[in-house]
């Protein structure tokens, strides 16, 4: 396994954008150093030869968990909507998504 290149400031800016986080210049500098340090520590794992070892995503794997297809009580709509930042006509209200209608 080849080791990946060291994390750069541009990598962190790109990742922050993907994760919908806006960082200040100071945060970018700080996080780049800190995250690079964590990834350097992880280099011991990245450099191991584990070809042929199956990955484990879940230690106590359970598969095909099904339940009877029956109607059961669900959350109370008004109680749920009461916690929303903005509501209109029993729905969550958000700012425009695709810009103004033509």
């Amino acid at each position, binding site marked *: *396994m*080849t*080791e*990946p290149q060291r*994390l750069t400031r541009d*990598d*962190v800016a790109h*990742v*922050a954008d*993907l*994760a*919908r*986080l*806006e*960082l200040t210049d100071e*945060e970018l500098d700080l*996080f780049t150093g*800190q*995250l690079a*340090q*964590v*990834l350097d*520590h*992880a280099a*011991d*794992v*990245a450099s*191991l030869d*584990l070809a042929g*070892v*199956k*990955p*484990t*995503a*879940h*230690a*106590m794997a*359970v598969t095909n*968990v099904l*339940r009877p297809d029956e109607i059961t009580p669900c*959350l*109370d709509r008004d*109680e*749920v909507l009461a*916690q*929303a*930042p*903005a509501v209109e006509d029993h729905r*969550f209200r*958000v*700012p*425009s*998504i695709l*810009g103004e209608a033509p």
Partner: protein
Amino acid sequence: MTAPRPSTALANAVRSGARSALEVLEEHLSAIEAGDGEVHAFNLVTADEARAQASAVDRTVAAGDDPGLLAGVPVALKDNLCTRGVPTTCSSRILEGWSPPYDATVVTRLRNAGAVMVGKTNMDEFAMGSSTETSAFGPTRNPHDTSRVPGGSSGGSAAAVAAGFAPLALGSDTGGSIRQPAALCGVVGMKPTYGTVSRFGLVAFASSLDQIGPFAATVGDAALLFDVIGGHDPADSTSLNRPTPRVLSVLDDGVAGLTVGVLTEFLVGADPDVVARTRQAADACANAGARVEEISVPEVAYGLSAYYLIAPGEASSNLARYDGVRYGLRVDAEDTAAMNTATRSQGFGAEVKRRIMLGTYVLSAGYMDAYYNQALRVRTKIIEGFAVAYQRCDVLLGPTAPTTAFPLGAKTGDPLTMYLSDVCTIPTNLAGHPAISVPFGTGDDGLPIGIQVLGPALSEGTILKVAAVVEAAAPDLAPPVLAGRS
């Protein structure tokens, strides 16, 4: 000699009518009132709701009925456990003011057992931290020395039990977040086998690692709380649909005939006083009839690195839900994408941002195989390494944390150093196994040390038996003295 079980005794006194649940509650509310200004174990004390629960327990007893195994016992809840109509913040600005529309399964089970829930405890933001210092609402302080951290992330729950604010508490453990603060605060904390306690209503951090578990003053009380909260729950698809070990009945069986392996990897890097206490605890097991040997599981040395790739990966996905749309904070902006970004940037603290970015990075195209998938292969190797050890040994023994409680602020500037305080607890989470931390005297600085007993999946009964023997041999630990109550 069996250690006292204060919570069990309290429940029995309330069930028999010898004490009223309301009187027990008021004692604990007074202790919180006097001491929590100094400790800050709680984000919220729910005195009114607790009084209503205690009164209901007293009415049940008066009517000649049994309120349950935890009748009238005050319990503190980590603030990532959903409580219907009661704010649940995860110690984050992004959830400040949010009241869940449902109860976590563990909360329902506590209620059904007659427990009285006294409040929501402080934690590292979204359980990401090892000192409770990443909380958006300020740190919790260690009751044994308020200039020190209580550990984390469930530092509020550990401190609440240590300070006598509640005899029992619940926490969650993703990489050690129950056991490490239990060790640093001088209380018992157990991470059960993954899937034995329902995660329904536990706000998700890293779903393949998160597990709810008990804090208590003694091993027997931790076993009682585990018996109440454990068991299959159809609302959690990862809940194990097979009998959960019922542990109370086997607690006093002793360790004769068991083999205890002292895990040498956990002694590397631990402070000398911590190593000395570990050897002393191993001797106690030998004196009680166990076979004790040293054992090496070389794979666990890679646990920390693997964890800090896997857990942030899962967290970056889980925390995508905080988008300002359905609940919690919204910071307005002209369109939805800008609103999402503004909300997340203002709502999350630095450690949560770091983990989201780390997770996003290790899952991104070009890096996923080198980091995330490689960490999952290491996880397989760790599970295999433990399996070999458990062919020879019934349980493994080691320290819970490499040091005693460190001063506030000592590690906040250096995330990697903070992460290293989880080095002895992380492998258990990766393997899905149970482990328990038991107080075992103090270090050279007079602060509590915790000894960890680890076992294979569903071995709660066995690790608790060993923990009970360790507890019986433990040097006395002076209770904390808070200035407000001296």
